[in-house]
């Protein structure tokens, strides 16, 4: 009897494999967007010795390929989630990649946005290009490492694997932040490194507690055993440590002091990648943990409180900021607080609102940091910039209106969704969060309108010359993202429906467990 069982199982699996060979092959290709950039990053330096031209092309090429593979997989395999056991070792022992629509969406976003904000593309004046040529291979390799680690964060289904990818993303971002080699960038990097490394220590302690309580770090298995083992204060402590640890990159409240310094000193495209992309993937990890492992209401409340504190501190600091990059940085802290509040709402509504606000922030804040590439001075210096760059100024107004939440734009629908969700929740904490969001919106409107007004004032004669219009590539990217925003705002109903399907799939814990530990159908029958 015991002998027959594995044979039956084997035949069943074999049969499935034969029928679905192409599907399995396509599904397995999902590891390539993680592996290929990693490989390319380490080949970059030798290749640059042979041909600088090929080395420059390698990064965009690999990212395009990665985007194509993910799109292809998504279309071929269909909307149902699937899991891939790395190296053929099955789930509880080996590492799995879990790809549902949310993971695929963010993995695709990583490829596309790294490509759009590729540090080497459309570099500035000719005099910069010569100096840039020496640094280019190193910087490109770091950007590829960041893309690889971020894709891994979206796909991985094992907590320790996620931790390793998180560290990889951290180290790559340290290198990118200090890429221009100025003294202040070194200091900002060092402070960022200390905060980030201490966050990782806290996350590691959280992981140790989790392992002590459950004996596993596979997310699907954790989801199975969590209801018995992780209730009560110990589970909550583990969640708090993981939240604060992964919250460093997600710009969540206590450990976000690095944000304004780093975004004020790093190249604007790197700021766009860190604020837009990496923060969202850290949030994604926290959300996966919240949905699968920590289902107690206290965990959501903790996220809500950190979110409210982030919204208030971020928006008020942005109101006081006097230069454009730091204004965007503080506003980014506020927006990510809003993401945290949205994800803390119960059920599908919360996941829907959270995903929508995360995507909205990804599009808008990346584009704004792209515009800040040449507008990195104080706010006074922006006076009259609309005259030199009317299109960039127009795009700024569009993004600002959507960030504030002015009715026809996507930002309005998202804020509405969050507010309705909070009112339905109805607890005093929810209502407090509602008040905080309304207050923050007023503050946000004030400082963004102040910048917009300044852009359209008549230029001060001696200052107008100093301020160059944003580079053509950055304006082009901002155009593209603005077009995305307008299209989504027009097609708001289908977008929300698609996101609702995605949110239902993400919130389904049983689906996650069943996908990672498939029941052998042939044997059952």
């Amino acid at each position: 009897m015991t002998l027959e069982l594995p044979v039956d199982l084997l035949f069943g699996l074999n049969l499935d494999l034969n029928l679905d060979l192409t599907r399995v092959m396509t599904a397995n290709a999902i590891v390539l967007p993680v592996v290929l950039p990693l490989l390319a990053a380490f080949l970059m330096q030798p290749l640059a010795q042979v041909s600088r031209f090929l080395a420059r092309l390698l990064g965009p090429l690999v990212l395009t390929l990665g985007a194509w593979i993910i799109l292809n997989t998504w279309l071929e395999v269909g909307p149902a989630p699937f899991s891939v056991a790395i190296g053929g070792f099955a789930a509880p022992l080996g590492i799995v990649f879990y790809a549902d629509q949310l993971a695929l969406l963010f993995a695709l976003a990583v490829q596309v946005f790294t490509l759009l904000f590729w540090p080497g593309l459309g570099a500035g004046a000719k005099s910069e290009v010569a100096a840039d040529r020496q640094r280019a291979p190193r910087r490109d390799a770091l950007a590829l490492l960041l893309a690889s680690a971020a894709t891994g964060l979206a796909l991985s289904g094992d907590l320790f694997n996620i931790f390793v990818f998180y560290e990889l993303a951290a180290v790559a971002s340290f290198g990118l932040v200090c890429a221009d080699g100025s003294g202040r960038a070194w200091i900002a990097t060092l402070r960022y490194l200390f905060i980030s490394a201490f966050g990782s220590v806290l996350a590691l302690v959280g992981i140790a507690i989790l392992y002590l309580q459950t004996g596993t770090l596979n997310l699907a298995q954790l989801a199975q055993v969590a209801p018995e083992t992780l209730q009560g204060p110990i589970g909550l402590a583990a969640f708090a440590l993981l939240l604060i640890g992964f919250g460093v990159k997600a710009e969540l409240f206590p450990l976000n002091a690095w944000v304004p310094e780093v975004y004020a000193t790093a190249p604007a495209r790197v700021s766009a990648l860190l604020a837009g992309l990496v923060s969202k993937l850290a949030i994604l990890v926290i959300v996966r943990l919240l949905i699968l492992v920590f289902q107690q209401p206290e965990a959501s409340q903790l996220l809500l409180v950190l979110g409210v504190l982030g919204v208030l501190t971020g928006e008020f600091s942005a109101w006081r900021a006097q230069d454009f990059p730091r204004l965007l940085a503080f506003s980014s802290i506020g927006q990510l607080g809003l993401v945290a509040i949205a994800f803390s709402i119960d059920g599908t509504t919360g996941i829907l609102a959270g995903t929508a606000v995360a995507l909205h922030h990804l599009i808008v804040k990346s584009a704004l940091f792209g515009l800040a590439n040449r507008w990195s001075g104080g706010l006074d210096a922006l006076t009259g910039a609309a005259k030199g760059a009317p299109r960039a100024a127009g795009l700024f107004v569009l993004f600002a209106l959507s960030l504030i939440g002015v009715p026809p734009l996507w930002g309005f629908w998202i804020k509405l969704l969050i507010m309705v969700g909070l009112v339905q929740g109805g607890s005093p904490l929810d209502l407090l969060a509602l008040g905080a969001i309304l207050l923050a919106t007023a503050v946000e409107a004030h400082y963004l309108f102040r910048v917009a007004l300044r852009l359209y004032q008549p230029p001060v004669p001696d200052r107008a010359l100093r301020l160059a219009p944003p580079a053509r590539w950055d304006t082009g990217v901002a155009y593209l993202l603005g077009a995305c925003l307008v299209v989504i705002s027009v097609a708001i109903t289908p977008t929300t429906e698609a996101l609702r399907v995605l949110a239902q799939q993400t919130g389904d814990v049983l689906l996650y467990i069943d996908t990672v530990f498939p029941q052998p159908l042939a044997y059952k029958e």
Partner: protein
Amino acid sequence: MIPLSLETVSYAGAIGLVVIGGLGLVICNHLFRMLLALAMAESGANLLLVLTGFRDGAIAPIIGYGPAGAPLVDPLPQVLVLTAIVIGVGVQALAVAVLVRVYRSYGTLDMRELRRRMEGEIAAAAGIAAPGSAQAPLGQRPLPPVPDYELVRRSAPVRERGA
């Protein structure tokens, strides 16, 4: 009263190391001490991780080692902690490299001084006024006289204690 076993002491030690490291990061202003505090916190986390696989009286999980049927320690945390140690060493090495660059650029490792300079440089690059000091007088009132020990401290920002 918790019985004072080896396990309890080890757990307390591991958590204590993390706490001491965290406090050190917050309290110290010298960058190298902050780095040492970070290293301490990291070893605390690693110790905690490896303790999760510990069993009293168990032997190393190697096939053919020790008597058959004897309890084994959990090998997985040992693998995990190996990865964590390697990551930690990498990050600390990077921190030392950046620290050297900072020292070469500014000639000091005092966090407050460096932070003040960074804020000033960011403000200068953006063409805005540098953030004011909390001690600076608002109006035209003269500053109180600087005590002698303060003058000595300000002239030598990097002190080598115990050197």
